[in-house]
């Protein structure tokens, strides 16, 4: 499979169809992989793909990042199904044009949750929670796909897989608040969750605003709560569930639990799944006559 991808990547680079191919390469130790920017045809053999390829590469297509300012006209990108949904969402939000990317889709069998948990194989003990019930293991929108692309039924609801969400929802309000208070106590506002998110695309983040500073920059409870709640609200209907925010967190705070719960609410109320359509707008900014209004009491 990876040979076909490499050949295609080589061809694209040789023909000058793309300026760069973003993919994965072997990392600093055997459990790790690293994102790699391949610019010369002779380097394509560095590209690999297996269950250790955790990173969400569409991050590098986000206009907020320097990589997009290098003057590359067209970028080839190796994408798992979930990453391609992130690309689709970026296009729907006008942060990217479809003709600026060449998507090399890979069939995915799931990835590990953290590099440290890699022990040579993927199993229930180390699989990322987003991978247990995924309907884009065969990716949706690709320019190249190794082999035949089978038809997949993706009409079903998007499942919130993490048992932790159900756990939290089963708690009383006070208990749940106590859980977050304890978790957020560790947060020191490094903003890794923001930097790694493919959808955080503001030129000036609301947390960096000073006139006025809506979000207190200090890492006390007020500042931490207002940051995480704002982040969750800004991703309603947009988060494609890559889970990178939780993985990037150095303090091991499960910040994506918010996003998963929001995804569930959006889906229940508006039947909307982010990252499946290039045109559809997310429900917080659209109005339909048959929208549920039972929250108005």
């Amino acid at each position, binding site marked *: 499979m990876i040979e076909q991808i490499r050949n295609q990547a080589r061809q694209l680079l040789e023909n000058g169809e793309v300026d760069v191919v973003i993919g994965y390469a072997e990392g600093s130790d055997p459990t790790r992989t690293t994102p790699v920017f391949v610019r010369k045809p002779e380097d394509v053999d560095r590209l690999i793909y297996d269950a250790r390829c955790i990173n969400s590469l569409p991050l590098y297509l986000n206009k907020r990042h320097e990589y997009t300012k290098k003057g590359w006209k067209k970028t080839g990108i190796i994408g798992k199904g979930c990453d391609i949904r992130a690309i689709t969402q970026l296009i729907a939000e006008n942060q990217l044009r479809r003709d600026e990317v060449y998507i090399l889709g890979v069939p995915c069998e799931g990835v590990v949750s953290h590099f440290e948990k890699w022990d040579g194989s993927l199993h229930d003990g180390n699989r990322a929670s987003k991978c247990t019930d995924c309907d884009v293991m065969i990716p949706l929108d690709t320019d190249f796909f190794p082999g035949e692309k089978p038809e997949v039924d993706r009409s079903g609801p998007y499942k919130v897989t993490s048992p932790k969400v159900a756990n939290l929802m089963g708690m009383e309000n006070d208990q749940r608040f106590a859980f977050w208070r304890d978790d957020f106590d560790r947060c020191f506002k490094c903003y890794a969750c923001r930097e790694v998110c493919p959808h955080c*695309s503001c030129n000036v*983040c609301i947390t960096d605003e000073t006139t006025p500073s809506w979000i207190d920059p200090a890492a006390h409870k*007020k500042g931490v709560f207002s940051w995480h709640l704002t982040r969750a609200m800004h991703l309603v209907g947009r988060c494609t569930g890559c889970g990178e925010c939780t993985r990037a967190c150095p303090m091991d705070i499960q910040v994506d639990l918010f996003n998963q719960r929001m995804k569930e609410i959006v889906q229940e109320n508006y039947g909307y799944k982010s990252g499946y359509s290039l045109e559809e707008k997310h429900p917080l900014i659209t109005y339909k006559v048959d929208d549920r209004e039972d929250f108005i009491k």
Partner: protein
Amino acid sequence: MAKIGVFVCQCGNNIARTVDTAAVAKDASEQNGVVHVEDYKFMCSAPGQEMFKKAIKEKGLDACIVAACSPKMHEATFRKAAEAAGLNPFKVEIANIREQCSWVHDDKEIGTAKSKDLTHMMIERIKFNRPLERYVMPLTKRTLILGGGIAGIQAALDLANAGIEVHIVEREPSLGGNMARLSETFPTLDCSQCIMTPKMVEVLDHPLITVHAYAELQKLEGFIGNFRATILQKAKFVIDDLCTGCGECWEKCPFSVESEFEMGLVKRPIIYIPFPQAVPTVPVIDKTECPKILKDKCGLCAQVCGPDCIDFTQQDEIKEIEFGAVIVATGFQLMPNVYREYGGWRPPHMTPKKLTKKERAALPRSGAGRLVDVINGLEFERLASASGPTGGQIRRPSDGKIPETVVFIACVGSRDCNKGVEYCSKICCMYTAKHTMLYQHSVHHGKAYVFYMDIRAGGKGYEEFINRAQNEGAQYIRGRVSRLSKKGDKILVKGADTLTGQAVDVEADMVVLATAMVPQGDAEETAQILGIGYDKHGFYSEQHPKLMPVDSSTGGIFLAGTCQGVKDIPETVAQASAAASKVLALFSKEELQRDPEVAIVDQEKCMNCWDCVTVCPYLAIDRVELKDRNGNFRKWAAQVNPGLCQGCGLCNTACRSKSIELQGYTNEQVYAQITAFGGEFV
């Protein structure tokens, strides 16, 4: 350092009852930046406003808080007063201590504490108020009127007589609308055409009015004062300027189709004017039927035409015209297809033209239910009209016999939640009474029965008119009709008299249904072209049901007549004149001033996700390309058109990067207001 004045109003006893205004004033005087306070019985009164102005001038105040009633009430009053005293009006804010405080609290202690908080919040907020200037927009003093019925005609004449240029767009070949179809009008029984046609001619001859007959509005862009309309002039195949209206062509035309104007009761030629008094008297060729246009056969009209004005090569034409205001007067139709309700059937030449194939198939073809003599109110008007198909003699459509017994059924389709519309059509009681009179004036020995639910005759001379109809012999039966069936050459009407509790059977020669008045079939599409609101029935929504009944939801677009709701002729005319006076008020200035409380974009921060474009209900946000100093493309950004923006603030909430702010409600102002309240988190 700010120099803020705080003016606390007692509103007689309205505020003073539950708020200690002196304490509020004292508390305010201790706040940072406050240099002047007043506590007065009626701030909005003339002496109160004088006090306000005097303080601004003498103390050199640079911002004022009026702690009083809702800003909806008197914000404009005090801003105007401030302007007169030389202070920027947008440096005046209202702290609402009446509607949101004194009226909803009983406890004076709580009321006073809350008033202090509300005032304190405004004091902090106003420190960030910027002196805003009103936007000045150009104004095109030309009005577009959609629809050439009585509403459109009245509005056009009122405007043109005041010196305003008017364009009427009418989709039929002639002005007149539904009123031209009526025979006589209630409650005076004066002839509809006699009062209407002089007005139609006046419109055509008026130097300031341009009539676009047989034309439709395709697109409307722009905003109040600066609309740009795209008008589709359908090909008439007749050259307007040459035609003398002699009538040779339509008399000689060998083909005929059912006449829309005569409700399908008779046929008309393919080159036609809808009715003899049509204005303009220029015929049009129905290109969907004409064999010359379809198959290049015939062409007789061109041969007989003296001035040689028939041009089969004519094409539809697009006109683009700029307007400052629009009056929508698109009128109504009767609820289509109600005949089926009562088992009725129409022969092909009498089937309403707009039926789809499927609907046609659903009509019963033969046997029981062939009820040709069940007609609706407008068809009866044509039968009773002196210029109608029967020359004013009331004859039934099936065999032309003069009907001896006529049953009138009121509320057909109206006040019917299940099969029809929920509302009362308002005019049916009156026109049914008129019909009984017209019928009995024409057929002296005839018997008229009216089945009704209630009589609703609220209007000048209306109840008297109903009494007159009853005195002249019409028999009113309170009850509904359950079915109509054929009995010989008569129609058996089975109904009930709910006052006596008995079943009533009447053998009638003809049945007239008082069918519900509904909006035009394409009312919703028209509303979408115009960008105005409409209700669930398709009637256009007014801005405020009581206080702004002729303004649509969009600035510069006004409503007149039955497109806004069911109305009779006097009400329609009154609303048309009201709409005209609104336009005159708008055009009374040389330039348009727009409120500066509109959204503004920080284009460097904008990350062009276009969420604001998606949420904006007024299409006020454009996508623009920013260029560097060499003219090279730099980035995309949103830009608000202050002419269209209504300051609703939706874009503010949609913008994640906080790149859009509403002037007068900026983040800094709102943040200062919230923090002044002192709410601490966790």
